[in-house]
Every structure is written in C-alpha cells, then in structure tokens.
C-alpha cells in the first residue's frame, strides 16, 4: 500500500541509486548465489548447537526431568523462562507486519519479511518447551480437546496452560498464513528468474500460481488487510495469556495484575531487539544496506526505547505496590528479589532493561550501528533475566519458609536452551538463502514515493518547473 504523496524532507527509505530492477537483483542475489564462507561457519556452529540440544532433549525424555535443576519448590526454572523469552521475541514480527501495516508505516516494508520469519522460528522454539518440560511428553496431545476413549474426557479450560495452548497455536498459524501470503509475489519473482528446472519447480509450487495480474494484487491487498486485522489483537493477547500463567496463581510476585501489560511491553521490547540483532548482521552480510537503512534501525531503536521505558515503569510500579499494599508476603518477595541470594540476577535485569535503552535518547547512539547491535544483545540478555527473576526468585521463597530452596541449573538445562538458539539460527540461515528476505514487491510499491532515486528526480523536476515558472 503506498500513499500518493510523501514530503520531500522525509528521509528516503531506499537509499542509493536503485531502480526496480536493482531491487529484484539485490533481493534475489542471496538466493541465487552460492553461500559464502561466513554463512557456512555460522551454519556449522548453529547446527552443532542444535544437535547438542537434540541430545539433551533426548536425554531428558529418556531419563526424566530430574536431569534438570528443578526441585520440589522451584518446579519451573529455565524451561518456562526460555518459553516466555522465545514467545516474547516473536511479538516484534507480528507487530511490524500487522500493526505497522494498519498504521501505514512504509518503513515496515524492508524489515517485515525477516521480522515475521524471526517470529515463526522463535515460536517454534518456544513451543518446544511446554512439550518437553512435561514429565510425560509423549502424552502432550492430551492437552488437545479431541475425542478420546476416556469418556470422552475434556481438558481443563480453567487452566492458563491450556489457554497458552490455544494462544500459541493460533499465533503460529496466523503468523504462518500472513507470512506466506506476503511471500507469494516474491516467490513468483524467484520463479520467474529461476534458471534450473528444480529451482523453477520449487518456487512455482511455493508461489501458488501467482500471475501478477491486477486482480491478484487486489486480492493480495485485501487479504493483507484482513490478516493484519486478525494478527493485531494477537500482539496483545498472546503474551497476555502467557502472563496469565503467573498472574492467575497465588504465589507472591506472580499474583499481580500488572503482568499482562508488563509482559506485552517486554515482549515487544525484546522482539525488536532481536530484530535489530538479526538485521544488523544480515544487511551487512547480504549487502542490503540500501534497503535496511540506518533510519530503519533508528526507528526500531525508538520503539525499543519506548517499550523499555514501559517495562522500567512496570518494575517500579511492582515495587511501589508491594510496599503500598502492606501485604507482608508480597513485600518480602520483592525484598528477596533485590537483596536475597539471587540479587545478582535482579541487578542484571535492572541494568540491562532499564538503564541501557535510556542511552538511546542520544541521537548519536541510536543511529550508530555498532551501539545498536550491542544494546540489542544487552536487552535480550536482560529480558532473559527478567523472566528468570520472575519465575525462580518468586518460587524459591514463597509462603512457608520450610519449603525455601535454591535452584542451580544443570548442563541439560543449558544444553536445551543452546539447542533452541542453534535451531533458530539453523532455520534463519537456511531462510536467508532460500527465501527473499526483503518484501521486494512491497518495497517496489514505495519506490516512487520514498526512494532516494525518485526523491532526487522529484526534487529536480520541482526545481526545473519552479525555475520555468520564475522565468515566465
């Protein structure tokens, strides 16, 4: 969707002297060319991590959850921390694809494809955890409300874990459909440029017979709008449901109404940070700096700053309400977080999440690629620790002091997590070489208004016509 007029002073979204053909060639190059050494190194590391994770999961399923560090009091630790971390990361993609579409933000065109891919791959990682954290994961299908021979026995709709099942599966399916619909014209582009019969066959199937007729485009625009409308509420609802895992419980530190907005803001915060991490690397490696410009990075940094501030506000609110409520168990829960045995994780969380986004008030920092990359990593580390703090420090010291315990992860906890990171990068690296990583059809639709080439043309044309007027 392109608007008809854009002010000349707006920074161009496609820089350099690019024309339509350049866009096609630049986006197709990583797919059509051979993988370079850097890609192979990254892929090998990711694959090893993935296989290590598979081994750790197999060990867990074969021997028991006892191979992890959890105990009678801390029943969830790294498993659910990682689950929430991955789901949170996924929210950025949907926001960029859906919400920014509804808000007609043209800068989303260059980043939405990769952001949405990130969402799908991170939701896949997230889904591993609810399945494999179960004591009997081979019975995981029992959470599905399907007819069975037990009576039929329904699932328990009161349970937030069950709401998670529906929320995450809806999220995955809607994101997949949205992503695929947007990919159709781009797969068609690859199909039309394909040289070998195998490539042509594959991309023909993937593009579902896209013909490029005006009718196809009209349907494309309509469906995008509908799916954006469907996906937008998901941005808010999915992580709200995830937060209900904690908010609806009775444990001090979990049982608080601030969790839904706090989690949603945190999700967008960590998601945009991950998008930055991925795109800063990808734009350099795949030579896409003309499309994923510094302005794109800056705009994402601004969103990181806003959501980071919301998260910081939420932390302070929690502390205030713990004091104001006068509930002694709640007060102890927060004193313990900050000064108890896990004070170091609380400090990490606060520094990474509250302090680091604030440095982006300085334009110099938020337009610096290096600084943005470092901050994006720091934010994701901080957000992991936030979930760790919420889960482990609230559980390990709750109501009865006799059940207070400590938690220490095992190599299997770490291995499973590293495995999901490996799996994520395996998928992302494969995607970057077989999918068009930029929504090139959509980028082409904004060339006339937002690219540097055309802005220069318009400026010259205006000057020319002005000067003609003046002469007359």
């Amino acid at each position, binding site marked *: 969707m392109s608007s008809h007029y854009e002010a000349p002073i707006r920074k161009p979204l496609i820089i350099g002297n690019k024309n339509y053909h350049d866009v096609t060639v630049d986006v197709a190059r990583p797919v059509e060319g051979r993988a370079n050494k850097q890609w192979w190194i990254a892929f090998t590391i990711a694959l090893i991590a993935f296989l290590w994770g598979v081994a750790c999961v197999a060990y867990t399923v074969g*021997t*028991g*959850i*006892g191979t992890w*560090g*959890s*105990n*009678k*009091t*801390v*029943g*969830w630790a790294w498993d659910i921390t990682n689950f929430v971390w991955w789901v949170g990361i996924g929210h950025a993609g949907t926001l960029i694809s859906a919400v920014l579409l509804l808000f007609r933000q043209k800068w989303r065109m260059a980043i939405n494809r990769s952001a949405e891919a990130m969402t799908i791959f991170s939701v896949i990682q997230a889904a591993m955890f*609810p399945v494999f*954290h*179960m*004591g*009997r*994961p081979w*019975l*995981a299908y*029992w*959470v599905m409300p399907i007819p069975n021979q*037990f009576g039929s*026995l*329904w*699932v*328990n709709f*009161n*349970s*937030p*874990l*069950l709401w998670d*099942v529906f929320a995450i599966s809806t999220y995955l399916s809607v994101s997949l459909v949205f992503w695929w619909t947007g990919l159709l014209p781009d797969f068609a582009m690859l199909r039309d440029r394909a040289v070998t019969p195998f490539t042509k066959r594959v991309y023909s199937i993937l593009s579902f017979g896209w013909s490029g007729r005006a009718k196809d485009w009209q349907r494309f625009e309509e469906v995008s709008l509908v799916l954006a409308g469907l996906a937008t509420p998901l941005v808010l609802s999915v992580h709200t449901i995830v937060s209900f*895992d904690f908010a*609806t*419980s*009775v*444990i001090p530190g979990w049982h608080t109404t601030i969790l839904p907005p706090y989690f949603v803001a945190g999700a967008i915060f960590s998601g945009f940070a991950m998008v930055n991490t991925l795109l800063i690397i990808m734009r350099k490696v795949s030579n896409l700096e003309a499309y994923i410009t510094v302005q794109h990075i800056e705009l994402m940094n601004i969103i990181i700053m806003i959501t980071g501030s919301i998260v910081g506000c939420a932390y302070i609110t929690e502390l205030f309400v713990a004091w104001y409520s006068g509930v*002694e168990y709640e*007060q*102890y829960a927060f*004193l*313990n977080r900050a*000064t108890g045995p896990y004070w170091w994780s609380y400090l990490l969380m606060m520094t990474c999440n509250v302090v680091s986004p604030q440095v982006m008030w300085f334009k110099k920092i938020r337009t610096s690629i290096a600084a943005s990359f470092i901050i994006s990593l720091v934010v994701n580390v901080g957000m992991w620790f936030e979930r760790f703090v919420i889960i482990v420090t609230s*559980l390990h*010291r*709750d*109501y*009865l*002091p*006799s*059940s*207070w*315990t*400590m*938690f*220490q992860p095992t190599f299997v906890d770490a291995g499973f997590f590293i495995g999901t990171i490996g799996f994520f990068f395996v998928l992302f690296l494969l995607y970057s070489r077989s999918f068009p990583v930029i929504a090139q059809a959509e980028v082409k639709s904004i060339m006339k208004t937002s690219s540097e080439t055309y802005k220069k043309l318009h400026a010259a044309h205006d000057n020319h016509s002005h000067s003609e007027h003046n002469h007359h």
Partner: protein
Amino acid sequence: MGLENWNVANGGLNGSYVSVTVNGKKLEKVPVIVQPGQAKGTAGLALGYGRSEGFKKDMVVGVNAYSLYTNFNSFQTAKLTKEAGEHEFACVQLQKTLMGRGDIVKEATLKEYREQDAAHWNEMPQVSYDHKEVPAASIDLWESFDRTTGHHFNLSIDLNACTGCGACVIACHAENNVPVVGKSEIRRSRDMHWLRIDRYYSSESTFAGDVDKKDAASGLMNSIETFNAMEDPSDNPQIVFQPVMCQHCNHAPCETVCPVAATSHGRQGQNHMAYNRCVGTRYCANNCPYKVRRFNWFLYNKNSDFDFNMNDDMGRMVLNPDVVVRSRGVMEKCSFCIQATQSVILQAKRDGRIVGKDEFNDACACSAACSSGAMVFGDVNNTEDPIVRLKENERAYHLLDHIGTKPNVFYHVKVRNT
C-alpha cells in the same frame, strides 16, 4: 574453631570435618552439624552409626562412636581438631527460621491462653469488605459445595501434642509406597515426603519476639537488615514442629491450573490426584502455597540408579498392594489415605453398619501412627467423631487462611508454659 555449615549453590548442606580425641582414642573425619541451642563448649555424638555393613550401602552412614565410649560414661571430655574437607549432608529443610511469620505457627503462653480471648492469641486474618473488617474466611468468590451428606474428612494437628517424633512420616511412606530417592536427590531438594515435619528455630529468643521484631522493622534499609538477621537462628532458640501435608483445600489453587484436569476435588473433601492423567507440567506444585506436592523426577522403582527400596524383589514385596506405585513424570501427594478410608467404608457396608467413630482415625496412616494423639483424622459429618469437637475448639486455625484456600486440615495453637 572455624567449623561451619553452609548451603551450596543447589541448596545442599555441607559441613566441616573434625577429628575427636577422647582419652587418647582418636576418631577421624567426623562431620559437624552446628545445632542452634546447643550449649557452647559441648559436642554431641550419637552411638549406633558407622556400621561396616548395611542392607544397602547407602545405609552405612556416619562414624562409629563406640571406640570413644569408655566406662559407660555418657559424658566425657573431648578434644576436637578441624580437619580438611567438606562433608555433604542430606538435609531436607534449608531455611531454619520462621522469619517472623507468626500466622503460620500460632503460639500463646499459658498466661495468654487463660487470660485473653481467643481473638488475641488465635487472631483470624481480616479483610475489608464493604468498608468493614470481616474474617477472611467468611469471604468466598465461589458458591460453596454442600458436603453435609456422606463423609467429610478433616485432619486435626495439635501443635502442643506433637513431639516431632516422625512416626507419621514413616507410616505415610510405608502406606503409600513413597519412594526413597537417595542422598544426592535430597541435597537437590527433591525429597518425596508426602507428609513432612517442618522444624523452625526462633531468631530472637522466642517466636513472639520474632514477630515483634518483624513488625517493628520500618523503612527500606531497616527491613532489609531485619530480614537478613532473621535468617539466623538464635543461640538459645525456641523450637517448633509442624507436620504439613496436602491441606485438601476446598478451594484448591492446584486444581484449577492443571491443563489436563488430573487433579480434582472429591465429594468427601479430599483433593484427588489422578496419576494416570498427569502429564507432569508441575503447575499444580508451583501454585500450591503449602508446597506439599511431589514430582517423580526420575523412575524411582526398578531403576538401578535408585537401588533403595524398590529395585529388588524383596523391597517390592514390602509395598502396599492397595496403592499404585507412580511412574516417572507424575505428581503425587497426600491422599488422606483414600485407599484406607474407602476400605473402612466398604467394610462397614459389607457388615451392614455405619462407620464407627474412631475407624477413620485408625485407618489413616499418620493419625494411626501418632502415639501422642496430636494427629486426629475423622469425619466431621459424624457428630460422634472426636474430630468434631477438635474443630470447634477455639485453638483451631487453618494454615495460610488469608489466601482463601479453605483447607480441610486444621492446626491447634501451640500453648507454651512461658
């Protein structure tokens, strides 16, 4: 002397070693436990440990103190020298003190009990409802379920009569085929006690002093200091025992959160656990404020890694055939000995009579084993059952009443002489 007990990262308790010399005889590598309240300058060493053989090698623990035992003297002068090394203890409870949480174990002195109202020494939590202070127990989000027909089980635990002997724990283990998990699992806080006895030391010289100290803490820094200090037991503490098991809450936080409905509420008031439906998400255990639920982290039976009571034929012969042996990956907890109560009910049915007033008490493992009469189990719908009077007693209170769980287990306020 530099002798210490400390908790390592996973919670396990470690301690120093000493060598003990008595009348020229030396005993080496004796692990040290620092016991709060023990007189300074004394050391105690129990006889009976340190055997050379045991039924299982894990039963061979401790040191043989008989070598130091001269002339049938129970008290002798000993010389202790610190040795290098760390001993790994298996201690189920990490936290020694009650942190001033006076509503968990309620106490009164005899003077207070006689002279003051129950409202003073058995203070019920209040909430504000319609701008009036009302007992928290009177507020209910849900409609009540009518349990006046049939049996309604309650368990009474008198904190005065409880000596902390642990017979109830052993009885529960034996009755319910609770697995032995071994030292390394206990160190990682993965014991399987359905019924446990919590033991608290006071940090001030009395528990009442703890509560006062906690209430007096004001301001952020003072509160932090107070709570930090309260983690250490006093050198001359008061001590209290509290047996805790599944409270069979009428509004159980565990029941609502199970995604597959593996835990539900019975008509007789018990919280049921369907082992064969449990997929092991452990949300129920996380949501239990009493932390009474136990998870089968490994396969504890027919598993040579856990060669304790369920790995050989002889050990398995001892198992109670009326109770399921749980597999890996499922939750378990106190069931109010449902197999025993059902058996009582069916036996009465077969005999064509009503259940007698003490029958349930004798059937439930913990109450049957309790020799001091601290634990009484019974049917509150039967007016003749002793539990009815115990429940109406003004010393009766529920644990963590303010959460609104409405437990079927109640405690009696501990009354001390001074």
